[in-house]
């Protein structure tokens, strides 16, 4: 059990620091929250710079343009970029953190070479079209229909809460291909080019006052069958691959950023009970950072990240909520201005216990899969 980075890791850190110092000094000013064309440009240009310098897809295989580096270098990368306040993944979130890893695990060679390098170069923005108005927590209850017709699937239905839907070039799309099978058995995973005829994307305004996600209406959209990832009706398994990435690592970088936020808040916290609350939050975030290191170590060792990966998101959502509440209390009437980074963060992080599986669903999963507790009795079906 040790926490010391190797000499190779430290050499990587030193080199990355030098590069970041130069690259960040040339960065344009960050765009306004509601200026989406500018946000896409800002985030993808940064992704491109990372790629050109050899820092995109740190742990992705080199054959798809990644760095092929060790998981500990991935941690060093997260540490250094966050500490240096480099741009967040932003619109590259789904591509680099969900879709990329899913394609690496499940995609065909053609799909991998078509998308992985472009994702890393910031040339493709992805969105996730999983949820539907009637299929949220019960995602497997999704109803968007896909009927095979020659070399295409013809897709009709409605998706909702698709982050980056209005700026995405491609979507991860879940459809029902067998309406007669049990609900988990009739689902297929498709790559959806967002510019196909029959797609209508309508942004939804969030509590931040900007459009962070969208409704996506699909009306007889012809998606080539070659875009299918995994087998027909095997999409639920493929989905779980994606969701395991989401739970395991996708939130680590913002967790490290939360530590930065907490440390920067410290000098402004004067009230004794607030200081003690800050100490608790920092203790939790420090522990989650250590838990990440444990997950990564176990994954390197056993091929799977171990029980900690199931726990991360629930614990992180709670710590982050406490930090958000603390910010509001410390800012007092200063919180009346939404432009303060800390107010904006408080609002944004209200979504953490909801997005990517609510905290209740996380507790069900932990109870059932880690503790072996029985599922609740199914509700009797109405005839």
């Amino acid at each position, binding site marked *: *059990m*040790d*926490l*010391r*980075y*190797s000499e190779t*890791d430290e050499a990587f850190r030193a080199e990355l620091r030098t590069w970041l110092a130069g690259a960040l000094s040339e960065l344009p000013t960050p765009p306004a929250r509601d200026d989406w064309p500018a946000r896409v440009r800002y985030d993808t240009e940064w992704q491109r710079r990372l790629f050109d310098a050899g820092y995109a897809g740190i742990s992705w295989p080199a054959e798809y343009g990644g760095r092929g580096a060790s998981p*500990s270098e991935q*941690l060093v990368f997260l540490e250094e970029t966050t500490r240096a306040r480099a741009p967040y993944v932003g619109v590259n979130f789904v591509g680099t953190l969900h879709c990329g890893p899913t394609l690496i695990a499940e995609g065909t060679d053609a799909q991998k070479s078509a998308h992985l390098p472009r994702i890393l170069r910031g040339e493709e923005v992805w969105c996730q079209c999983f949820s539907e108005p009637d299929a949220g927590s019960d995602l497997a209850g999704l109803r968007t229909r896909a009927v095979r017709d020659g070399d295409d699937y013809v897709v009709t239905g409605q998706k909702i809460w698709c982050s980056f839907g209005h700026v995405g070039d491609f979507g991860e799309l879940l459809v029902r291909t067998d309406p007669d099978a049990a609900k988990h058995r009739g689902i297929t995973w498709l790559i959806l080019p967002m510019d196909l005829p029959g797609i209508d994307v309508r942004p939804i305004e969030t509590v931040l006052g900007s459009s962070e996600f969208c409704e996506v209406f699909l009306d007889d959209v012809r998606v080539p069958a070659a875009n299918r990832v995994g087998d027909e009706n095997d999409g639920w398994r493929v989905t779980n691959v994606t969701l395991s990435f989401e739970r395991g690592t996708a939130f680590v970088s913002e967790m490290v950023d939360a530590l930065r936020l*907490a*440390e920067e808040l*410290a*000098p402004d*916290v004067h009230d004794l009970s607030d*200081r*003690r609350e*800050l*100490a*608790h939050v*920092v*203790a*939790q975030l*420090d*522990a*989650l950072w*250590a*838990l990440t*290191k*444990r997950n*990564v*170590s*176990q994954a*390197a*060792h056993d091929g799977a990240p171990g*029980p*900690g990966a199931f*726990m991360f998101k*629930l*614990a992180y959502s709670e710590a982050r909520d406490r930090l958000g509440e603390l910010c509001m209390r410390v800012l007092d009437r200063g919180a009346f201005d939404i432009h303060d980074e800390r107010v904006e963060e408080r609002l944004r992080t209200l979504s953490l216990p909801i997005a990517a599986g609510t905290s*209740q669903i*996380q*507790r*069900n999963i*932990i*109870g*059932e899969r*880690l*503790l*072996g*507790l*029985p*599922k*609740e*009795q199914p509700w009797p079906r109405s005839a």
Partner: protein
Amino acid sequence: MNFDLSEDQVALRDAIRSLCRGRFTGERVRKGFDQAMFDELATTGVFSLRADGFGWADAAITFEELGRAVVPGPLVWTHLAHGVAEGIVTGLERPRDGAPALLEHLAVADGIAVVDDDGISLVPSDAVAGVTALDWPLDPLTPVHRIDALPTGERIGGRDEAAAWRRGGGLLTAAFEVGMAQACTEAATGYSLARRQFDRPIGSFQAVKHILADMVVRAEVARTAVHAAAVTMDDPGIGDRERALSGARLLAAEAAEKNAKGSLQVHGGIGFTWEADVHLYLKRAWMLSTAFGNVHVHADALAARLVR
């Protein structure tokens, strides 16, 4: 970096766990700490561990297992005193302003270690006068005496040693608390599978399942914090030792207390009885939360590290 238990550490953990399963059963533990228990733990190397070449991380793994079995006794103090004082050692922070001292396990102890900011003193346990035993201590497995006047004793360590004992004591207490928190999760999970109401195991009810899910997460997060603090104590170059330690202590104390309460709730009426083990965990958690700095002390210490 490999922040997973090494093979040797897994073997150590398993050895202590099976020792506890075999020798420190519920029935034995309920009889309290005695010389025979001390001898068995000493033979296993619980107290001499670090003198034998093991690190704080190994000691933490060991104390986690002892906590799982709520083994009674001044285990942490005796571990700290190893090599400095003979036999069973109990201890406390010197009470401020001549306030009376409350001390655990006086009757079985050979010596009392007294820590203050300037150092550590050792008082032979038969040298104290004005001693009254509490006839009803909070934790039935932890006898407590009130001492009206604590002698000065003999200096056995200075400032640095006092600071080191506080750190080490805090770490091992936190490890013990994590073990207790895990034991509570396991006991409550087991009960929730066995106990049936409304024709089904109570563990299938979400209201119960979610209590248990929170318990397992709380214990695991605290455990990771304790391991990180231990590793940082073994290798102080890797981070802020005080911050890691105080954070671990905050989370571990909270986990022990909240998981004991969660277990009590999941057990229903039986959880409120003397017969069930739940109260032993909760009462010990309350007592330990005052040792080597309570949660306020550690919260203040951690907050102070953030504004340097």
